[in-house]
């Protein structure tokens, strides 16, 4: 894991938020980080090759490049992604939400892929999630097995992977959040998009790259009626301030 720079403990955590053409949650993410949570969201442009010294990176939701070809497929080749991939490979923390999750899968930074919802319907709803691990940089502020409620809004959020990959990520504990019902059970009815094993979010093998379909950035203040999303950002802040510990 990349160590925060000296003095990181005493200053405001800076998160680079990438805007691709067609991103639509980038401004909301910067707002949540900066205005609501008191961190600093730093807008990064898709043509940037410089990360402007940010501590970690977030790829936001939206429809980058119109979702042409496949969701996230074209964004993966934006100039900024070379730098993001290098940052991730050197241990930097990277989170992708919704379209950002799709981009991370297309870039090969996360296992699996996201395809059309099994229902063929775009879903816009609040869903229950169960936190499977709280020893990641992204979930340290959660209790083990904690249930959260977050919004989703996507047409292509069905997580798929081949049998060997699915087995590997389950055995490695790379599934971080799952869709559950109000009782915390992974039922079919609680699965909004047909994802295998009710998977809502995964980390890479090294644990420094995380993607999920639900929108943490839309659940940080009273406006949306949901606040659990803030836990993901506070987790990253604590991780960085503690020098790479949950």
């Amino acid at each position, binding site marked *: 894991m990349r160590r925060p720079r000296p003095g990181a403990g005493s200053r405001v955590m800076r998160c680079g938020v990438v805007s691709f053409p067609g991103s639509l949650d980038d401004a909301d993410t910067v707002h949540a980080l900066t205005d609501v949570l008191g961190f600093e969201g730093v807008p990064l442009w898709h043509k940037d090759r410089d990360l402007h010294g940010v501590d970690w990176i977030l790829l936001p939701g939206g429809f980058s490049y119109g979702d042409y070809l496949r969701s996230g497929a074209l964004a993966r080749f934006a100039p900024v992604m070379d730098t993001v991939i290098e940052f991730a490979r050197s241990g930097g923390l990277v989170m992708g939400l919704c379209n950002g999750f799709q981009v991370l899968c297309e870039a090969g930074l996360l296992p699996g892929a996201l*395809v059309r919802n*099994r229902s063929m319907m775009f879903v816009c709803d609040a869903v229950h999630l169960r936190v499977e691990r709280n020893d990641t940089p992204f979930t340290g502020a959660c209790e083990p097995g904690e249930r959260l409620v977050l919004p989703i809004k996507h047409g292509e959020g069905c997580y798929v992977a081949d049998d060997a990959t699915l087995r590997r990520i389950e055995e490695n504990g790379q599934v971080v959040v799952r869709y559950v019902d109000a009782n915390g059970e992974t039922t079919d009815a609680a699965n909004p998009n047909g994802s295998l094993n009710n998977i809502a979010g995964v980390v890479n093998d090294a644990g420094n790259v995380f993607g999920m379909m639900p929108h943490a950035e839309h659940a940080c203040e009273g406006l949306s009626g949901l606040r659990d999303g803030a836990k993901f950002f506070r987790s990253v802040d604590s991780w960085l301030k503690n020098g790479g510990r949950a």
Partner: protein
Amino acid sequence: MQAKVYVTPKAGVLDPAGKATERALHSLGFVGVHDVRLGRYITMEIDGDPADVTARVDDMCRQLLANGVIEDYRFELAESSEQ
């Protein structure tokens, strides 16, 4: 040359669009139809000799046109019709 690229869902990978299309065919009365799979057909004009073009199109498929996690691809080359 002209390249015709066919990108299809891998066997075993869920294809919700194919399933929905299959159900629509059934509701239209087309019986005995199953395993409908939806893919993508891409054409392009590309300069170069056949060996070179084959290598380049294969590279394009692996890097961008198909996602190896969920899709297979194959392609055909033909002389461009306008030549």
